[in-house]
């Protein structure tokens, strides 16, 4: 309720009524303290768990960006040197690729010698009916015929003794009717780099 004050005629010539419109209530001082506490907690907490690690991160980022600037400068410098020597990176890459393919091309000659040796080995007693060589798989397949089946075992053992042969096996021994020789498929896996 607002406070009302009355002043009578006896004291003064003018009379007026003084009305205090402000509500008569106790101000909650505790509330202000709470706000201050909240602000303090917010600031303290932010400083501790945001500012501190963020500051460390900022230092780290500055360091990384500084290193990036150095690298960028060095890179630009090398680009200028390359331009001054007229070195065309694309042409050099192209040239390197050609050299690499050329090396793979000549790899065949290592195989060729092995193939010749294998054929010579078989030819001593038997006959090659079919052979295939795949440079991608580094495998030779030979279809060989011998007079006797036991000779396949001898061939297999002989091939195993060769350094470059990783594996040698024969399968599907076929004994044709009549006087023809026995036949089998011999698969030879090689490693031309073997010593």
């Amino acid at each position, binding site marked *: 309720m607002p406070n009302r004050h009355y002043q009578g005629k006896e004291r003064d010539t003018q009379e007026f009524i003084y009305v205090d419109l402000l509500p008569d209530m106790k101000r909650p001082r*505790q509330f202000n303290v709470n706000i201050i506490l909240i602000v303090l907690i917010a600031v303290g907490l932010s400083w501790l768990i945001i500012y501190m690690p963020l500051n460390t991160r900022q230092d780290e980022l500055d360091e*990384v960006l500084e290193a990036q600037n150095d690298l960028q400068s060095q*890179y630009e410098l090398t680009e200028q040197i390359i331009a001054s020597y007229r070195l065309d990176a694309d042409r050099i890459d192209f040239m390197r690729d*050609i050299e690499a*393919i050329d090396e793979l091309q000549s790899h065949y000659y290592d195989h060729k010698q092995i193939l010749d040796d294998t054929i010579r080995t078989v030819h001593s007693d038997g006959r090659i009916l079919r*052979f295939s060589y795949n440079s991608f798989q580094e495998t030779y397949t030979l279809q060989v015929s011998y007079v006797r089946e036991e000779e396949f075992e001898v061939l297999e053992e002989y091939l195993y003794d060769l350094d470059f042969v990783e594996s040698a096996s024969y399968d599907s021994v076929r004994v044709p009717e009549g006087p023809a020789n026995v036949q089998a498929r011999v698969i030879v896996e090689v490693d031309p780099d073997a010593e």
Partner: protein
Amino acid sequence: MLSKRLSDFIFLGIIVLVIIAVVVARFFLLGVFDDRIEEAKETNEDLEIELLENQQLISDYRDDVLPSEAELHRAMPSSYSYTRLRNKVQGHLELEGITAEAHRDRSVEINENAAIPPEAALSEYAGPYDAVGIRIRFNTDDVSEAADVVDRLYAQDQLFVLHSVEYETGGTSRLDLRFITFYHLQE
């Protein structure tokens, strides 16, 4: 007027909200910074690699005279023509005495989309360049003709890489040779 209990409750609620907001802000801000640091580090790594490549390039080729584009394109032509390639291969076969006579039953096939198995070292070059397959078949009793054909094609400026050789004896002995050649086609 707020009761003391409600006021305390609001106070505690605000404290909890502040803590949550600060923690969320922490993870968000640190996340943003971590991303920027990570991105900058990745850029640095890329720059380092490019820088090393440039330095290597300078030290390797500073004193060298590079072959011209034309020389390089002799090994890997910049334009492809089915007819030209086929005629070229047939021409070399003729020079080796493997003629188009009927008893030879010679054939030359060109495959413009040659497949190279991914395990083959050569497959690395099938992406940046255009690989073309060549298959040569002819009748022969002399298996050494396979080596002659390989030697002749290998002696050319253009790169031919042997893929496979198959030889079958029987009624008619037949050789089957496969090669891969590359083109560096210009846009």
